[in-house]
């Protein structure tokens, strides 16, 4: 028939394929994001991975020669201790942000709707100031002649100034301060989603307020807690500004090691290896944590 030919042509036109084939549609729609991710995330990661198997030349250049040297160096007890310590700081940051952030998020989620956006605005307000400046503000507060000590001394609560700055405690304070919003926001989101009727139902069935919290509110907010923990833990592991400024270079975290390899020692391959190790460890932790939380509902009940 004479109509056969145009029909055939139409079937193979790009427009037709785009209209009819959902797989092609999907690829077409996701391609801008995919291309962006490929250039700015996947390629650099591959570069880092490749770099981690190279070695450092005499003048800080990269010698392209495949070897495991960098990873062997990392097994050194010195680095192992730093890693363990970073893990501890990361976990401590996570725990404290939960302890401070949970009541805060709960309070915001339970306030009247028109006040909530204002409270959330307050949570985000610090981001309007540069991070470094905020850390210096903390230094002003915590140092020996700082605000905290002056007030406590004047009130007669202490006789000698507290030595907080340039100790691990100061690092933890700085870290918790910096990462608190990342815990509060996801927690708020999951707490806000719990309908009031669920808590009323629990009370109606004979649960006292704290039982309502333990059996209903807390388990239902676990997804927010997990999201918050990941958002806090991963960047906390790689953080180097806070330990540098508030830890007085006495506290060294994995982040500091990596930073130093790239900027001070100019040993890029070793820095890359340390980054890879950090990435693998955080990934393993995250996977384990989310897996556990997958059936965590039963664990908590």
């Amino acid at each position, binding site marked *: 028939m004479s109509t056969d030919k145009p029909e055939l042509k139409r079937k193979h036109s790009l427009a037709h394929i785009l209209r009819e084939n959902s797989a092609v549609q999907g690829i077409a729609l996701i391609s801008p994001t995919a291309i962006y991710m490929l250039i700015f995330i996947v390629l650099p990661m591959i570069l880092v991975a490749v770099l981690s198997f190279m070695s450092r030349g005499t003048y800080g250049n990269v010698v392209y020669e495949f070897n495991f040297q960098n990873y062997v160096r990392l097994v050194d007890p010195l680095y192992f201790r730093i890693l363990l310590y970073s893990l501890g700081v990361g976990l401590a940051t996570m725990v404290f942000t939960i302890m401070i952030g949970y009541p805060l998020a709960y309070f915001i989620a339970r306030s009247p709707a028109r006040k909530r956006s204002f409270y959330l605005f307050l949570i985000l307000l610090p981001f309007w100031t540069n991070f470094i400046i905020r850390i210096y503000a903390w230094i002003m507060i915590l140092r020996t002649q700082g605000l905290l000590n002056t007030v406590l001394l004047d009130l007669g609560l202490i006789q000698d100034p507290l030595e907080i700055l340039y100790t691990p405690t100061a690092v933890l304070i700085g870290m918790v301060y910096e990462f608190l919003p990342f815990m509060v926001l996801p927690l708020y989101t999951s707490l806000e989603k719990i*309908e009031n*009727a*669920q808590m*009323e*139902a*629990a*009370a*109606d*069935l*004979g*649960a*006292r307020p704290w*039982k309502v919290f333990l*059996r*209903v509110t807390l*388990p*239902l907010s676990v997804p927010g807690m997990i999201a918050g923990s990941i958002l806090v833990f991963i960047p906390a592991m790689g953080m180097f500004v806070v330990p540098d400024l508030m830890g007085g270079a006495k506290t060294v975290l994995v982040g500091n090691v990596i930073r130093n390899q790239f900027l001070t020692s100019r040993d890029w391959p070793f820095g890359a290896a340390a980054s890879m190790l950090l990435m693998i460890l955080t990934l393993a932790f995250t996977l384990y944590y989310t897996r556990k939380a997958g059936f965590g*509902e039963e664990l908590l*009940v």
Partner: protein
Amino acid sequence: MDEFAVEMRDVVKIFPTPEGGEVAAVNHVTLQIKHGEFFSMLGPSGCGKTTSLRMMAGFEWPTEGEIFIDGAAMGRTPPYLRPINTVFQSYALFQHMSVFQNVAFGLEMEHVPKKEIEHRVGAALEMVKLSGMSRRKPKQLSGGQQQRVALARALIKRPAVLLLDEPLGALDLKLRKEMQLELKALQKEVGITFVYVTHDQEEALTMSDRIAVMSQGKVLQIGTPVEIYERPNCRFVADFIGETNFLKGKVKKIERGLLTVELPDFSQEIKGMGHENLAVGQDVSVSIRPEKIRLEDDNNTTAVEEDKDNILRGKVLATAYVGSDTRIIVDIGHDIHMVVWEQNNISTLDPQAYYVADDKVLVHLPFENTLVLPEGVA
């Protein structure tokens, strides 16, 4: 045991409005609910029915007045200490728990031994026909099944009173009708007092032993479904329950329950049954239900003879055949349209047997079915 399962004594609940004012959601409500009764609170949204229920459950506290459960004043007793359980409109099932855990929750709070919990949950799930579903999560159930879980969860504690807040609102019509009958049967079986909040008048009529019709925070009438439908005490109740036709009038004469009402629009008088506290000269609404009106052919003089006052002349505007009956709209002049339902109790295909548009008809309002109602609240 006290005479009443629930008693509200002059209860007022005032809420602040966002504008800074105050609104009385419940305004001096007094009512008594008997043991084992299926009691419905019926009214449009915002009438105070849900607030009343929430006060019984203990989620809200009365601003004034007192609520008694089994004769005990509740005051500010928290929900977890009241012998009452609730089925929520949204079901409010615990999403992170299985069906079994949901139903067992109330018993665990009472520290019932594990063996007994298993036994009683099994029995409760059997009662609501969900035996095989105990390991599922609420999200894996249909709306009707979730509804049953909510019911089992609330009933397992054997409360003195079960409160139900529009529990069938989210179900489709067919399922809702099924559940209405099931709920009623269940209530008979367990013998627990049910307080049922709904805005669906048909639902209330189908299920209730007694109904309280509410509007704007007040109880307008309490009575059996028959009383509420056949003898509404004011215009609002007649209008809200079922369909009805209204005519404006003024009381002219009262004779032992039989009232003569003047209809100014028609310069005619009509007789009807009325409330005893109506007075001569009072403005009233004359209400007559569509199924209780009789249509006669224009030339049928015998009908005029027997009840000749209560006849209006009209013209058929439109008809709709709906199977069991034919719904006819009759224009009786002065921009007043009356809805009449003629039951199709004779099987015929003869077009002559049915009214058609433009037929001239006599609209007969039998005086015993014609109700004279006060304009406001009785």
